């Protein structure tokens, strides 16, 4: 009993700590409206809201469809290159969104290399002479973001599907269901928690994006936040906008929770028999292979090829001693951050698990808020928080590595928690009950029962958070100590100097680190 309390108390304290920056932004919801605010309401706010919603819906649809269907196909069927796709489908995740958006614009915008090539083939001089969908548009932004964000859904769904007992499928088969019926009537409903967990992450990331929408000229809620902050010089009004965005995401998370409450599909967990894959032949074999190839091609191969070309032309000028320092700083930040976050998230989720009350659940949801706000706004919250602490203790933590690591927790805990949640939901409640009746101590249960079952989710969380941190840009840039750079920051600076080719060098290292991590993760998933 004492153990429960300790766990709950520590999770309450942690929640408070982690959510303070977000709450410091959220209080702006209640500040009186200003002249700037009235201006926004009268002019651009409705457009911001519409565009942000459009992006959310678009990205949700695209990522859930691409992510889940590919996860399903590669789990249930064996076809040409299916083993390769198992790994490859995660790869787009390794490329930062803003880099893909630059590469795509460089290829497909009105002056892009591919566009020009096609024009040449058609014998036309001018892009206005042909029908042309400009990638630099809201639709383009949705496509680009979805191409790199669908792996969230793919990964979480896949972990879920692999562990989901094959007995359900076998049972459905004996009941005479067709493959399509099994997919729509059985698989989708039981996989809903995983699909939703992945999609919410993708949507939260998309809605908090600034890099892509700013470059593609799409005014969204987030571009509004920055216009208010940078342009009108009002951090307060910008925070007010951010607080509304947070509120909105908060409501979304709760609606989802509320809806799911009545439809709990939890595995009885009687068997973990591996799924016997159906071997596809003929047309369906080709179809499955092409179907999985498309997201890999557009999300990874295409941008990666372009980047490699730029890399080869410029790596000699970029890689020097200083570059190695940046690489080391990136790595240490990434590893430290993901270890801390993976451990913290476990405390939260485990508390909810053994202490199944609403309060623990709400606490956990609150800590997720940080992921829905743009990194730069999180930085504002963190600065506000540390300015209180610094003033009180007369120290200077802002501008230290502590501030950055803390900010990463605020922003990325959601990813780790979502990973654990879907992992935990696979462990049947009967296990906990059994431990209780057998009088197994909590710590023993944790070590011998829970940990072996959850270690995959923990590992996945570590890897995903690691990749997120090395890709992260605005937070790191604003909060970093003196003479501290990361690969993402360096790449961004080079782009700002019009050195697009050179910028591919640090970007390439981010991608390579990401690929290595992703492959390690995928291997582990296959092995287990």
């Amino acid at each position, binding site marked *: 009993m004492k153990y429960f309390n300790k766990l709950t108390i520590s999770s309450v304290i942690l929640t408070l700590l982690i959510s303070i920056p977000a709450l410091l932004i959220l209080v702006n919801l209640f500040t009186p409206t200003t002249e700037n605010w009235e201006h926004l309401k009268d002019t*651009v706010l409705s457009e911001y809201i519409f565009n942000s919603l459009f992006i959310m819906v678009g990205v949700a649809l695209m990522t859930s469809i691409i992510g889940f269907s590919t996860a399903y196909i590669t789990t249930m069927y064996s076809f040409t290159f299916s083993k390769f796709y198992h790994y490859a489908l995660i790869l787009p995740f390794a490329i930062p969104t803003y880099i893909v958006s630059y590469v795509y614009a460089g290829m497909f915008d009105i002056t892009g290399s591919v566009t020009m090539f096609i024009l040449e083939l058609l014998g036309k001089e001018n892009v*206005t002479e042909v029908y042309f969908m*400009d990638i630099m548009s809201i639709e383009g932004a949705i496509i680009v973001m979805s191409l790199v964000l669908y792996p969230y859904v793919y990964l979480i769904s896949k972990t879920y599907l692999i562990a989901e007992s094959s007995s359900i499928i076998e049972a459905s088969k004996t009941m005479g269901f067709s493959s399509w019926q099994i997919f729509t009537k059985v698989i989708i409903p039981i996989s809903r928690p995983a699909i939703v967990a992945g999609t919410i992450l993708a949507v939260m990331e998309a809605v908090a994006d600034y890099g892509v929408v700013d470059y593609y000229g799409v005014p969204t809620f987030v571009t509004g936040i920055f216009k208010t902050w940078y342009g009108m010089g009002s951090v307060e009004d910008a925070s007010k906008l951010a607080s509304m965005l947070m509120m909105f995401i908060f409501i979304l998370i709760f609606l989802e929770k509320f809806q799911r409450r009545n439809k709990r599909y939890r595995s009885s967990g009687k068997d973990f028999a591996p799924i016997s894959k159906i071997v596809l032949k003929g047309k369906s074999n080709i179809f499955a292979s092409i179907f999985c190839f498309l997201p890999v091609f557009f999300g990874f191969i295409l941008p990666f090829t372009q980047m490699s070309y730029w890399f080869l032309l*410029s790596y000699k000028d970029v890689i020097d001693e200083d570059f190695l320092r940046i690489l080391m700083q990136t790595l240490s930040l990434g590893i430290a951050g993901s270890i801390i976050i993976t451990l913290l998230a476990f405390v939260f989720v485990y508390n909810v698990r053994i202490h199944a009350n609403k309060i623990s659940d709400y606490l956990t949801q609150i800590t997720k808020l940080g992921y829905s706000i743009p990194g730069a706004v999180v930085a504002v919250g963190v*600065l506000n928080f540390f300015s209180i602490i610094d003033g009180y203790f007369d120290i200077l933590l*802002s*501008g230290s590595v502590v501030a950055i690591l803390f900010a990463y927790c605020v922003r990325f805990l959601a990813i780790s928690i979502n990973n654990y949640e879907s992992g935990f939901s696979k462990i049947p409640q009967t296990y906990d009950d059994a431990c209780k009746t057998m009088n197994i101590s909590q710590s023993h249960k944790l070590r011998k029962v829970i940990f072996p079952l959850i270690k995959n989710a923990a590992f996945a969380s570590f890897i995903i958070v690691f990749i997120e941190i090395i890709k992260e840009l605005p937070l790191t*840039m604003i909060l970093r100590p003196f003479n501290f750079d990361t690969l993402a920051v360096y790449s961004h600076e080079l782009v700002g100097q019009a050195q697009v*080719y050179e910028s591919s060098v640090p970007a390439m290292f981010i991608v390579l680190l990401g690929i290595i991590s992703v492959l390690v993760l995928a291997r582990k998933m296959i092995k287990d």
Partner: protein
Amino acid sequence: MFKKLVLVTIIFASSLMAAAEVNIYSHRHYDTDKKLFKMFEEKTGIKVNVVKAKASALIKRMTSEGKNSPADVLITVDAGRLFQAKQKDLLQAVDSEYLTKNIPAIYRDKDKKWFALTKRSRVAVIRKDSTKENELSTYEDLANPKFKGQIVVRGSNNIYNQSLLAAMIEHHDEEYALKWAKGVVANMARTPKGNDRAQVKAVANGIGEIAIANTYYIGKMVHNKDASQRKAVSKMKIFFPKFENGGTHINVSGAGVAAYAPNKVNAIKFIEFLASPEAQKLFAEGNYEYPVLAGVKSSDLVASWGTFEEDNISINSLGENNAKAVKIFDKAGWK
């Protein structure tokens, strides 16, 4: 005697320690700056510590850090942010004979809280074969319906556009500026997107006739690994528009000493160094900016674009009018 010696040693040591470093918060992120910092270190033995981020974020960080802030110097890429920092009491007045004597009065704060280091002008870029040159004249005229469907320019989120409109407000008034912005929006060849370089590329490839861009981006396009940028810019030439009652729009990149600078002496030395002829030459050669120091020549490439009359309004007004400009853009529907 011994006591005195110890005292002298301590004072000497502490002055040495004080001479050890200078902490820079900079919005500039150019290779040229890296070289300059190294030059300064070699010359003075003062170590340069840098944090680079957007000026607004750095201003927020300085505000939060308050009196404990380690920042000595704030460097921005526009006058508006220097003005903001000054308004928030984040900068202190600096008495430097060198800076006051050598930087023209229009390019430094009258309260000595900031000093411009380089200048950039915002100009019209047209195709070499274009005849638009004969029609182009003033910034005001860009709103003339005769340019319908011809103007290509980036979004209103961008500070350089905000400064241009702030200057328009200063030359006329808000009402006129709104009318002008609406006129330009009506003349746009496409919805604003991409950066300055993207606008130049667009016009080079037949989208619209007139791109609005900062001069130093053109320099960066000329000397670029990316063949498509080189090819695009090779088709283009620069036209320097003027304000009806002024000159070509100028924005500055500049620096000020932080209000609570722990290394104030070094900070001043640092800014003076950036305004020295050798540093100014590097700004001009390496980054295609216009040096603020009289007597330092522009790079050959920049000089080849021709000379122009600089606008005469106060640079501080760009900061003062910035928020108004943002709102006018919103009202005018400039995305």
